[in-house]
């Protein structure tokens, strides 16, 4: 319990068994998480709002290739990217969300644009992209969201499906 600010972040679920994580990767993940915390803390320490803090933190997470969102987006089985994001303000139940999009550098900013610039809560596809463009958000080519690690994971998953060796590890269902 605290009268001051508080912030928590998650970078998703681990995709490697703990024993298989190298010291270098572990250090890189800790460093990335620390950078994300700093992004949110800096907002809160300057008397910023919780809404701005979670936006800044998630934007930093999206920019980080180690985690599965935005720049580290996974591939669909068709080899494409589809991103979703949501944001909600505890003060007044304002909320915004986008689904099934690819283009905005930071999907959380597109969700916030839906919240702030429309009367809707959840928008998908081309309509969501139109809101993001009208908000002046930066867009990226699909190559920006490509990471070799995610591509290799897709290829390995499809190969295991094809030869019948794909296990039913529940972590495969984690976003």
């Amino acid at each position, binding site marked *: 319990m605290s009268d001051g600010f508080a912030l928590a972040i*998650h*970078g998703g*679920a681990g995709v490697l068994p703990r024993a298989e994580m190298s010291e270098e990767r572990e250090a890189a993940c800790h460093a990335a998480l620390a950078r994300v915390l700093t992004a949110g803390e800096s907002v809160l320490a300057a008397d910023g709002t919780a809404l701005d803090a979670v936006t800044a933190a998630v934007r930093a997470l999206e920019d980080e290739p180690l985690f599965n969102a935005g720049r580290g987006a996974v591939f*669909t089985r068709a080899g494409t990217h589809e991103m979703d994001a949501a944001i909600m303000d505890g003060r007044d139940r304002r909320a915004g969300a986008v689904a099934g999009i690819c283009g905005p550098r930071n999907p959380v900013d597109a969700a916030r644009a839906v919240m702030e610039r429309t009367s809707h809560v959840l928008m998908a596809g081309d309509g969501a992209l139109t809101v993001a463009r009208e908000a002046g958000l930066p867009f990226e080519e699909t190559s920006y969201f490509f990471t070799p690690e995610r591509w290799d994971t897709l290829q390995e998953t499809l190969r295991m499906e094809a030869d019948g060796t794909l296990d039913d590890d529940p972590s495969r269902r984690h976003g």
Partner: protein
Amino acid sequence: TVGAVARDRAGHIAAATSTGGMTAKSAGRIGDSPLIGAGTFAANDSCAVSATGDGEAFIRLSVAHEIDARIRLAGQNVTDAAEQVVMKDLVAIGGSGGLIAIGADGSITLPFNCEGMYRGQSIEGQASQTFIY
């Protein structure tokens, strides 16, 4: 999936979640992350929740809203409410994953029922912490 929850100095809270989905998903499949009340929720400044895991299970259980409901209707604190939902309710329907949540008083809870997660937390006046698995 990534996400953040926060409480500011004015006592207000917020949540945000973002995801690129699960590897080799079918095109058009949407998980819990963008669904308010499932993977993301913050209302009436009671608690803020951002989830990551088996999206279909989180949707069926309305995980984030369920935690808020336990706080409002059963008088639970955010830690107990999140623990119940993640470690018992989700497990009962075969759902794996976890979430981060923050209460109106700034309490943080980070429960998960699977092998591992990447987490971090910062509380004013204390050293920040990062966690892996």
